[in-house]
């Protein structure tokens, strides 16, 4: 059994490409070419050179001494927060901008929720001198002003998504509509392991540099490439997919996904898709999603804008339903408290998304000789205002 995508983009029963015919030529062009392009030596060379010299990879695997002491287990942190632009998102946007160039595309569109993927996309478009339009929900534009300013400073046009609930889900709809209207010259850089095939697999492959580095770094430090557990937060699930990728079929390594319970799984204000979702179609992918009995997609809630998505990538839906992954959801309060604790024990202020992964210790015990790798997917600078408001700092 494999936990990776098959050639049609299915992870078990999840995935595929449930797209209107208008999107078929675009996704088909990508599907036919993405693996071949990614395997080209010249592509690999350019991708890895940019990851090294521009993004600052490899990111360190850091043994968190005081955190390990507190929880009586061995905790390593994969420092994706040290990537240029402050999170793992840029691994994917570097890959996709190079892909877009090879496909002869001259215009880039993207969706963003909190603005991290938008900033990472605007960054690589500036780097390559390509026009960039980022769709962002009108409500998110209002609550993420610094990232909107960053995108503008990087030369991107930020277009408000005015439809529906005016957040990430709707920004994604608007980006897809833009792609329908501009099928020839435009590449859509999706920010997570969501959307129609080949996006989930392509984004996972670009993010898999994370698990590739963990293997060699852990071997050096512990004499084995295998931790006992990999832990990552999951919204759409791109940082988690990158963390798990090279370990998916390695049953010696446990996989733990932490979702956002918001104000509590049964509060009606939650984004815990594995617990609350049912099988359905969102943004061209068959996966678990939060919806009404009638199949209308519902609005999630999390204090973290990056986890505020009503679906989850098809890889994760499969990890959950097959039992390969252990899915735990933590509340806003647990995540915020964990974020403060990590700041004060390790001197690292994590993004609120990442703080959710650290709240695992409220829910689960580990043995003293267990080796854990937690993906520290992003830094908390963008979330300062939320931390300030929450803790009355």
């Amino acid at each position: 059994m494999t936990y990776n995508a098959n050639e049609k983009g299915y992870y078990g029963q999840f995935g595929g490409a449930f797209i209107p015919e208008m999107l078929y030529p675009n996704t088909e062009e990508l599907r036919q070419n993405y693996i071949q392009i990614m395997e080209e030596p010249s592509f690999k060379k350019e991708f890895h050179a940019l990851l090294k010299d521009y993004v600052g990879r490899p990111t360190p695997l850091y043994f968190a001494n005081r955190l390990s002491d507190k929880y009586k287990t061995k905790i390593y942190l994969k420092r994706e927060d040290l990537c240029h632009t402050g999170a793992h998102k840029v691994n994917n946007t570097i890959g996709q901008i190079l892909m877009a160039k090879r496909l002869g595309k001259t215009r880039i569109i993207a969706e963003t929720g909190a603005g991290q993927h938008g900033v990472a996309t605007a960054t690589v478009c500036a780097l390559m001198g390509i026009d960039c339009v980022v769709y962002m929900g009108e409500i998110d534009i209002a609550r993420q002003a610094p990232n909107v300013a960053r995108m503008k400073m990087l030369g991107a046009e930020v277009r408000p998504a005015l439809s529906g609930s005016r957040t990430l889900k709707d920004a994604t709809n608007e980006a897809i509509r833009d792609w329908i209207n501009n099928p020839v010259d435009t590449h859509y850089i999706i920010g997570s392991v969501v959307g129609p095939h080949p996006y989930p697999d392509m984004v996972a492959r670009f993010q898999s540099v994370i698990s590739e580095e963990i293997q060699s770094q852990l071997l050096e430090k512990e004499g084995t490439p295998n931790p006992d557990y990999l832990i990552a937060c999951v919204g759409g699930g791109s940082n988690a997919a990158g963390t798990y990728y090279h370990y998916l079929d390695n049953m010696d390594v446990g996989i733990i996904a932490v979702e956002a319970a918001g104000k509590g799984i049964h509060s009606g204000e939650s984004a815990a898709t594995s617990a609350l979702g049912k099988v359905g179609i969102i943004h061209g992918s068959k996966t678990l999603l939060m919806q009404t009995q009638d199949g209308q997609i519902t609005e999630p809630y999390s204090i973290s804008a990056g986890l505020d998505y009503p679906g989850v990538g098809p890889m994760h839906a499969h990890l959950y339903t097959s039992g390969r992954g252990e899915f735990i959801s933590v509340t806003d309060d647990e995540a915020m408290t964990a974020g403060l604790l990590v700041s004060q024990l390790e001197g690292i202020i994590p993004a609120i998304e990442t703080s959710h992964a650290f709240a695992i210790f409220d829910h689960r015990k580990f043995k003293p000789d267990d080796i854990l790798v937690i993906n520290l997917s992003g830094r908390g600078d963008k979330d300062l205002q939320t931390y300030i408001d929450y803790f009355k700092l």
Partner: protein
Amino acid sequence: MKNRIQKKLEEDKKLVSIYFSAGYPNLNDTVSIIQDLETNGVDMIEIGLPFSDPLADGPTIQESSTIALKNGMGTDLLFDQLKEIRKTVSIPLIIMGYFNPVLQYGVENFCKKCQEIGIDGLILPDLPLDVYKEEYETIFKKYNLINIFLITPQTSESRILQIDDASDGFIYMVSSASTTGAKQGFGEEQDAYFKRIASMNLKNPQIVGFGISNAQTFKQATNTAKGAIIGSAFIKMLSQKGTVGISEFIQTIKPVS
């Protein structure tokens, strides 16, 4: 047994087809809109089952879908409103929507219900050809429902042939690379596309949709195609004039026969 869509396609005329969102402008307008459309000589109707995230639609249909959902429209309610529709209406009726609500209802249950009511076909733009063939074709056929596929100016010739082969009614020919309601008038590009498709001599007739808003675009589209579907322009009219405007709107579009 021939389906009403197939019989309608045999008539020697250009077909006027209208799309509207069920539950818009008011929750209980569905049946009266359908009856008014038939009375005014419309040949076929696409009844939109509203969806929260209509990816292929422009602002007009997004808005009508959102309002319809706010009004309380849903799958069960739509079926309930339509349960006696065949007592008064005889033209082909098609349900158009996105795949997720159908999947949640259960594809077989949905199809069965459609047959009971007298629905003749479904248009589900995000149900892809390969998935339909592998998983659902036998169910659609069992309930005598025609599944209608879309093609666009970017659809390759080989894929058009596959779609033609999988179809047994008409092909929904999307006029341009766009979401619904985006275009204002057709240019040379569309004319060339309409001619190109006509010259393929497909076994299924084509009905053009997206960008048909008045008599002129209707005429342009049906120079070669069998008919045309008006959606956003009809919904805009409803939002301005309400259901009393239906008769006048249809008369301005309909070809003089």
